């Protein structure tokens, strides 16, 4: 029983991490039709920025930890907005070029991070509590999973509130349905594109700092490795659906944890099989209207 509880809670923690990356991917694809292969770079840069900040502040205090989360989110948002403004904006409706540019940016950014911070993993320290465990019905659950889950729920609620209660949220929801009609109402939808990139970048940057504590290190490959699962989650959830991304994140991560434990470390294989099954049975994903 304790094993099941442990797998579920650690699965939820991993799912939270997937969601932080996938939420931005899903919003960006939903509104703009852009498959952003550079999204992992926002995560990695956020992680490095958070680590640099915490290192310079010299500590493992809670204040430094929370401040590093903010730094990671802000850096992710700024770099993502700049990417949209400088590179992607010129390439709307040109999908091949978008893929080439975002893949190129992802590769170049890894090389850049290698050059700045080196290729070896850099181990991070945070509040001691994060590295400890808590007893939940007999299961010793790593505490950082709770932080991940709380952060993902916070991000989900914040994005939902933004989409529901702000004018930009209204524009984005309408734009996901029919971008040209939004423009035909006199709205400069490009501003919404930048906002969506910034939101996705902020979630990725926040996820980067949390991922560095989850894995215990930050490295130039951090974003790329998570991006693969984030794409899988985005497709399973339904491209463009935030709720779908949240549901799929939890399903994929818990399935992965159970398969790793009970089926001899086959979690990744099971996730890929799940993706294939979803594409065969329900190509639009759990909540998507298009694939």
């Amino acid at each position, binding site marked *: 029983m304790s094993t099941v509880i442990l797998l579920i809670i650690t699965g939820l923690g991993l799912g939270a991490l997937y969601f932080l990356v996938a939420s931005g991917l899903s919003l960006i694809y939903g509104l703009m039709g852009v498959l952003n292969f550079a999204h992992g770079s926002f995560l990695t840069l956020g992680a490095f920025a958070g680590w640099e900040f915490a290192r310079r502040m010299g500590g493992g205090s809670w204040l430094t930890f929370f401040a590093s989360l903010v730094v990671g989110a802000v850096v992710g948002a700024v770099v993502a907005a700049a990417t949209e403004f400088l590179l992607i904006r010129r390439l709307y409706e040109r999908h091949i070029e978008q893929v080439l540019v975002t893949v190129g940016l992802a590769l170049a950014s890894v090389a850049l991070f290698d050059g700045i911070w080196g290729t070896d993993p850099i181990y991070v320290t945070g509040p001691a509590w994060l590295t400890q465990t808590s007893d939940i019905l007999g299961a010793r659950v790593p505490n950082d999973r709770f932080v991940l889950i709380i952060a993902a729920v916070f991000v989900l609620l914040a994005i939902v509130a933004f989409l529901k209660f702000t004018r930009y949220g*209204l*524009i984005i*929801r*309408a734009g996901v*349905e*029919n971008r*040209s*009609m*939004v*423009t*035909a*109402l*006199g*709205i*400069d*939808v490009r501003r919404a594109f930048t906002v969506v990139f910034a939101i996705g970048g902020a979630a990725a940057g926040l996820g980067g700092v949390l991922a560095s504590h989850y894995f215990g290190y930050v490295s130039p490959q951090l974003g790329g490795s998570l991006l693969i699962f984030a794409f899988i989650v985005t497709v399973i959830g339904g491209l463009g659906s935030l709720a779908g991304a949240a549901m799929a994140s939890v399903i994929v991560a818990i399935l992965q944890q159970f398969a790793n434990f009970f089926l001899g470390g086959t979690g990744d294989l099971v996730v890929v099989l799940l993706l294939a099954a979803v594409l065969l049975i329900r190509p639009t994903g759990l909540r998507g209207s298009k694939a």
Partner: protein
Amino acid sequence: MSAPILRVAGLSAHIAGQQVVEDVSFEVPATGVTALLGRNGVGKTSTLKAIIGLIGRRGTVEFDGERIDGQPTHRIVQRGIGYVPEDREVFASLSVEENLRLAERHGGPNRTLVDELFPDLVARASQPAGTLSGGQQQMVSLARALINDNRLLLVDEPTKGLAPLIVVDVAEALARAARAVPILLVEQNLEVVRKLAHTVVVLEGGRVAHVGLAQELLDDDELTKRLLGVHSAHAQANGEAS
């Protein structure tokens, strides 16, 4: 006679590399309804889209004396052109109220007019637009254009697929709107054209084939048959162009 509100000269448009409008020139007077007519597929919808830049175009488009053909769609619309697309294109997942709020450009100065014209929408404010009937969706689409103080409306087949009773309501709403703002109307229902339009521009094969008074065209059965493929008398009797 006052200057036209819209002047189109040598307008060509293309979709996915295919020419759909070719060297079209016409003017829309600053008052009343101008009907843009033609058989199916002659480029009426494409002409409206080209005017506001929703599809690639060449040529000159002047709105109230200023060229707008080099501007992006949102800027053209912000100048005071309301667009009611074919097939309504309401945002299905948004509520009626959200559809209207999205369209408001300056705090909704015509909210009273919209509420007065379409009381049904007030009652259904919180209902998702995608769950409305075709007629109600058309009202949302019209309301989005009427909610702002526009100086020109481009209205594309507003009665398409609607029940006869709803057609009467839509025509009435357009007639009221036309008292305040000129309208360029694409419409297949010649009864509605007869009721609303003063001037007609007829397209054929992507080009302008006829410009004149609506009444004159619709009274000339032979000309109507040649240009539109239907008898005006037949259209009168049945209320349909095709």
